[in-house]
């Protein structure tokens, strides 16, 4: 006598519809051929982005928002400040440069040794006294 399990397992399952074979294999081959025809760059990008497409999309959205903020809010104000301050800054720099030059000239003047004072040409008597004092 057959057991319950044997009775169940001997019930034959229906076979796969015959028409499916050609259709399924054809569609599978078409998909593989299409993948092979895709440019390598596109495939590379897809394989890189595919693991977390939502994360990449969110990151891209953040960048777009930041770019928009930068373009419409941040940049004009900064440019305006820069435009207002530019001449004043140039004048201040010029004044500093001038001061530095003056200081440099003063320092150079202090470091240069002073030349010995020249004797008056008409002091011959004084010269003679001097020569007499020198050892022979």
């Amino acid at each position: 006598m057959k057991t319950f399990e044997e009775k169940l397992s001997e019930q034959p399952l229906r076979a796969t519809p015959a028409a499916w074979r050609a259709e399924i294999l054809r569609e599978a081959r078409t998909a593989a051929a299409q993948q092979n025809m895709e440019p390598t760059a596109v495939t590379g990008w897809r394989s890189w982005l595919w693991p977390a497409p939502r994360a990449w999309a969110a990151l891209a959205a953040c960048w777009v928002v930041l770019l928009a903020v930068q373009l419409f809010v941040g940049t004009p104000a900064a440019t305006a400040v820069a435009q207002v301050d530019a001449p004043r800054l140039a004048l201040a720099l010029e004044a500093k440069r001038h001061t530095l030059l003056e200081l440099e000239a003063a320092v150079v003047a202090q470091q240069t040794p002073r030349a010995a004072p020249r004797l008056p040409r008409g002091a011959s008597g004084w010269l003679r006294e001097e020569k007499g004092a020198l050892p022979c």
Partner: protein
Amino acid sequence: MQLERLYDDHADALFGFLLNLTRSEADTRDALQEIFRRLALHPALLAGVRDERGFLLRMAHNQAIDAIRRRAARDRKHESQALETAGLFAPAPDTDAQTFRVALEAALAGLPPEQRAVVHLKLWEGLTFERIATALAIPLNTAASRYRYGLDKMREQLRPLYAEITP
């Protein structure tokens, strides 16, 4: 070709398993198509695989679970829970056998998918609990207990009919 050989060797087993799980010929067709599409796109999938049938049954199980979830969402949306007759078994030569097969299909349909998957692989694929556990990615004891629970339910449901047709 490799794809043809795979189809000829395994398509019937995958078809029966998918049909038993999804209860829908359309979902079974889609799942089978997806499995062979993936095999065509990634021929290296089976490289180094020792248990080819087990690997493909696992792919089929994943596809079936996806199909069941999609259909559940669709059914919630459309508020229709109609369960179509899948036609899981081959037509029987006599009325008694046909009645039993219809009742068996109904009993299988009454099982939760996880029990139905184990019962199917044990009874109609003849897999050991170890191979079933590997194919379905579940512990060995879980596979064995699901089989026992599923078989008990079916025995209870089919008892009158089984007693009647068993000599």
